[in-house]
């Protein structure tokens, strides 16, 4: 009872505010407003989306960016952690510079470096492919990897401590090669934090629009960008469409996390 009481303030604030936000979004996606009331609820906005090729293109684009950016960040994060765990505080601090950097700043940096006439362009004397505003979204992915890989690496490092190093030594003496040690000793230890972090990253990539807005193509847009443009139409229909897109993005984000959680539990048993 006392534990519940202690949990109450935080959980209630989260539940009420977040719940209100979600209910509000669902409500307006169903076309309900203060004027019309719940009786006017319909699925028109969703139906319109289902018929709109722009939406499907945006959904596909969002998913592709999310999967590629998350997967690349994971790989880079493990490599980064492998280097950092034998390094001192300075190296760790340096590597975590991008973690507190706002995404918007990272995106501006992305444009400065990768854009036409940017630093990379000048250094290499011409880039072979467009990285900024390119329809494939390579620039978006690169900015996300720069931002998220260090974040994931820090999570990995926290789990890849002396106890794991001790087991790695034991495995090495028993004849396990470096890759075998990574697979059988390190991976089981870092899997849970890594997958949890990956779910957070994937959910963020699905929902945020700072980076695609700054460095991504004008078309296709990510789901959140799509919602933003719809909001700007300022009509009641636009609002409903925007909310519907956001509800879909929310469902996607939560599904990704649920998938990760299910994966974690399955391997645990």
């Amino acid at each position: 009872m006392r534990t519940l009481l202690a949990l109450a303030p935080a959980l209630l604030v989260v539940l009420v505010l977040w719940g209100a936000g979600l209910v509000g979004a669902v409500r307006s996606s169903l076309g309900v407003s203060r004027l019309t009331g719940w009786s006017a609820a319909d699925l028109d906005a969703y139906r319109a989306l289902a018929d709109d090729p722009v939406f499907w293109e945006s959904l596909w684009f969002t998913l592709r960016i999310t999967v590629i950016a998350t997967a690349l960040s994971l790989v880079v994060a493990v490599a980064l952690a492998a280097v950092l765990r034998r390094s001192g505080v300075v190296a760790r601090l340096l590597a975590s510079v991008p973690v507190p950097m706002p995404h918007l700043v990272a995106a501006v940096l992305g444009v400065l470096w990768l854009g036409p006439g940017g630093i990379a362009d000048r250094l290499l004397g011409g880039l072979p492919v467009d990285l900024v505003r390119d329809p494939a979204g390579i620039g978006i992915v690169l900015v996300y990897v720069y931002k998220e890989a260090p974040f994931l690496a820090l999570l990995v490092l926290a789990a890849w401590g002396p106890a794991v190093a001790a087991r790695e030594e034991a495995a090495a003496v028993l004849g396990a090669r470096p890759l075998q040690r990574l697979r059988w000793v390190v991976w089981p230890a870092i899997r849970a934090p890594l997958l949890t972090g990956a779910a957070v990253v994937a959910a963020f990539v699905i929902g945020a629009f700072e980076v695609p807005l700054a460095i991504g193509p004008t078309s296709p847009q990510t789901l959140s960008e799509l919602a933003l443009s719809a909001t700007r139409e300022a009509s009641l229909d636009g609002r409903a469409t925007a909310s519907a897109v956001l509800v879909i993005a929310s469902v996607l984000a939560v599904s990704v996390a649920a998938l990760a959680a299910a994966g974690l539990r399955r391997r645990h048993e």
Partner: protein
Amino acid sequence: MGASPGGAVVLRGVDLEIPTGGRLALVGPSGAGKTTLLRVIAGLEPSATGRVEAGGRPLDGLPPHRRPIAMVFQEPRLLPNLDAAENVAFALRAAGVGRRERRARADALLAEVGLDGLGRRGVRGMSGGEQQRIALARALCPDPGLLLLDEPMASVDPDRREGLRRLILRLQAERRVTTLIVTHDRDEAAEMGEAIALMIEGRVVQCDTPRNLFLRPQTPAAARFFGTRNILGGEVVDGVLATEAGPVPAPGPDGPARLAIRAEGIVLDPEGPLEMTVREAVFTGSVLRVRLARGDMRLEARLPPDPSPSPGDAVRVAVAPGAVWRFPDDDAVPAPGPGVLHP
């Protein structure tokens, strides 16, 4: 060989040799470099100079997984995500052996270490003793050319240590696996080693049979480690060293000498040549530890519990001639030889 992990020289001039199938105990105070030596042998630590060989094959420069060596650490270091049998068979898995054969060999080994039928159990819930048995089975599984044991009793409950000691001895005898065991406990070293190498401050100061190390340590430091604190210095004249308390019989030629006297060789004797005062008498369970003094001269004796002298008593003591030996002269200390089992 020499090794200097992290800049500090930890090992210098260590030279050990274990005959195939033999059992050498490496003993010394903590910080002597014993664990570092094991890690250098296993390839976990680089050695600045020196060579490691197994059966005439040089191992230097080989990474740990390419050396025919297995190791049991102070802690079990089992993999928590695998069951007991897969932990035991880990080396086979790394070598690409199939699952069925791994299981069969792991189950057989588990039976040998007294954990019959526990193969499918997770290792998380097991006691420290059980985990260390699994670690032992895991090290034996690949039939290593050399088995390194780094204080394997350290993480085990005191009342379980005896069982683990006997298990190690039995398996070692059955399999004739060449074994190097590290301990900081001299009694354990005597029990576990056919020979003992004493290591102090990164040097092997003496490598000998347990009997010789206990009864005839060759340096004051070795004597102190093996429990002899009675160390005297002076001029031997006519086979006797004159001390403040009286004459002590000294073997060897006349001249300057450093002597050690085993505590067990000092007895209370009303006719004895030495006059001393009892400083302290403590009953330690089986014997009476008595500290004696006269001027700057100090002796420690282990006496039968009765009769017990009291602090302040003036007593006469005698020294059995067989309990006295002479350290070699400083410049004549022979280089510590390789670990020889039957000198």
